[in-house]
């Protein structure tokens, strides 16, 4: 195989709403290679979940892909027929969502659901599928996995359900795992456990993991490379260390400064970003962050391109240069 496992190129997605067309994604390009954990970080409305949904082919009915391609193993999956797309989603691409409460049907046992998730494996009998499900539950750290298979989702706590959702996603040994805010609904102690679990899993997992989160701490703990999104665009991409220590885009810097966990000394007043995210139905012509940017000047009335700063670091800002 040549090129990365996943390569999204110039993706634009619009939503039709009663208020007009919302440009949820504009010319977004990301890549994820085998064995890599890629983070997508941004605040609400930045398009990070839309991007995850587009890759997982889970966009809602009012969404329209206006431009771009999503290449997986060098094939544009947007051009595949619906059967082929479904095949791909079951076997090769799996997702874990924020809410572990709604990931499972409440009326079927965990075992029935974990067996059903393997329906594409036609050459394996049911007993073997059950054995695989049990082994996977044990692998994500659920004790008494055999007994748990006979239980229902409501009998599990939130943390256990999220572990089970991860087990379900990994059952078909997908080569791409997309985790959309996998720890947001969990307490901090369970969040730490899920971060730990994802880290252990990646050690013997050869696929790519894409983690979508608004939480900078989660991104720092898990990812190798990070894309920062703002108003439907990637504004900066960098290896995790460079992003947290040499951020170049003013939005990335402001976002990092706002995180109270990064302040070593107690502060009486917390840093904020003045203003609000732009209305995505009427985008400004220039840089979308300019109205909130302390450094904005005349140049920012023209939309900046993504500028390469080094081999793997880029930022969408007129003020940056390599």
């Amino acid at each position, binding site marked *: 195989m040549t090129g990365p496992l996943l390569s999204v190129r110039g993706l634009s997605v619009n939503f039709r709403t009663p208020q007009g067309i919302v440009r949820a994604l504009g010319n977004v390009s990301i890549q994820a290679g085998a064995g890599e954990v890629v983070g997508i970080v941004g605040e609400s409305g930045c398009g990070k979940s839309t991007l995850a949904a587009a890759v997982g082919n889970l966009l809602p009915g009012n969404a329209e892909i206006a431009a771009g391609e999503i290449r997986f193993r060098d094939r544009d999956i947007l051009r595949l027929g619906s059967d082929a797309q479904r095949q791909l989603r079951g076997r090769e691409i799996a997702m874990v969502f924020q809410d572990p409460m709604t990931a499972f049907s409440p009326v079927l046992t965990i075992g029935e659901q974990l067996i059903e998730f393997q329906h594409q494996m036609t050459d394996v009998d049911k007993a073997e599928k059950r054995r695989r499900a049990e082994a996977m539950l044990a692998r994500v750290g659920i004790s008494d996995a055999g007994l748990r298979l006979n239980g229902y989702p409501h009998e599990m706590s939130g943390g256990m359900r999220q572990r089970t959702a991860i087990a379900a996603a990994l059952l078909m040994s997908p080569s791409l795992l997309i985790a959309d805010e996998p720890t947001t609904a969990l307490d901090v102690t369970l969040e730490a456990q899920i971060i730990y679990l994802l880290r252990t899993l990646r050690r013997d997992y050869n696929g790519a993991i894409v983690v979508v989160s608004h939480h900078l701490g989660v*991104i720092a703990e898990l990812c190798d490379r990070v894309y920062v999104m703002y108003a439907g665009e990637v504004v900066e991409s960098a290896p995790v260390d460079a992003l947290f220590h040499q951020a170049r885009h003013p939005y990335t810097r402001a976002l990092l400064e706002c*995180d109270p966990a990064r302040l070593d000394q107690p502060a009486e007043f917390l840093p904020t970003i003045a203003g609000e995210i732009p209305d995505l139905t009427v985008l400004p012509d220039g840089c979308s962050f300019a109205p909130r940017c302390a450094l904005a000047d005349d140049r920012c009335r023209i939309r900046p391109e993504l500028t390469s700063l080094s081999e793997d670091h880029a930022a969408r800002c007129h003020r940056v240069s390599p």
Partner: protein
Amino acid sequence: MNTLLGIANLSVSFPLSSGLLDMFSADREWHLRVLEDISLDLGQGETLGLVGESGSGKTTLARAVLGLVPRSAGTITFDGEAIAGRSDRAFRTMRRKAAMMFQDPVASLSPRRKVGALLVEPHIIHGEPLIDRAEAAARLLALVGLPAAFADRYPHELSGGQARRVGVARALALNPKMVLADEPTAGLDVSVQGEILNLMARLKGEFGLSYIVVTHNLALIRHVSDRLAIMYLGRLVEVGATADIFRMPRHPYTRALLEAEPIPDPRRRRASLAIEGEIPSILNRPVGCEFHTRCAVARDRCRGQAPEFTRYAPGCAVRCHYPLE
């Protein structure tokens, strides 16, 4: 510092019925002990952070202080007066001087009423005379930095941050002495949560308010609270000055909570897990120290004997046989 709120030996329990059989076994009474023997003070002008995982009882404690859930034992003293009884009437005076900011500001506002009407509602409920409602609403909106025109909006027309501001304005409607804020920034973006906390800090100074902030966000509470109370399974396990607790937590649970918080710096990734397992069910409280099932330093004594809540300095206490040094 004068004490504004005193909570002594407060317990809350709910009767449990497990079905029809209960009707025939009168001798068996089941109670869900949600809060156990809480004693805690809030000083005038102080901000107290109430911290714990989901199910630790922190929200129930805030609600019990205002009588929104009935206490089964204990006393509450507010502004020099003990609250006699558990009825709404007993809490009426206190609720005028102590306001609650609920966790989900949009859900806690009636969707059919405009912001202006919602802001003067506390006056109507408490029978406070109001000469000019529009002017009162405008004054409250100005306090929280919103234009007067917001009085004509419905709650669903507000952004998350704006809805929180309306929640703050409504809490301040009757000039309270104390505000109980339940997760005041949950669900807000990191660039907006600072705005709300800065607003609360400014108003605290302006009006001499005291705050109880219920939260699970340790990174945030560190910057806004003077003292912390850490809860586990409905009990206080540690109380102390925020700076001291962050510098040297005494209870193993507090330390585990602090260490579980992900650090936004890839150079400081944690190598090991601070805490394993999950908070047990309160239907099945562990014997002895209730934290021993997850405690990294538990010994035999912890499995058999429940530790007392022991003071080690004024305003500092810890519930542990072997506090960390």
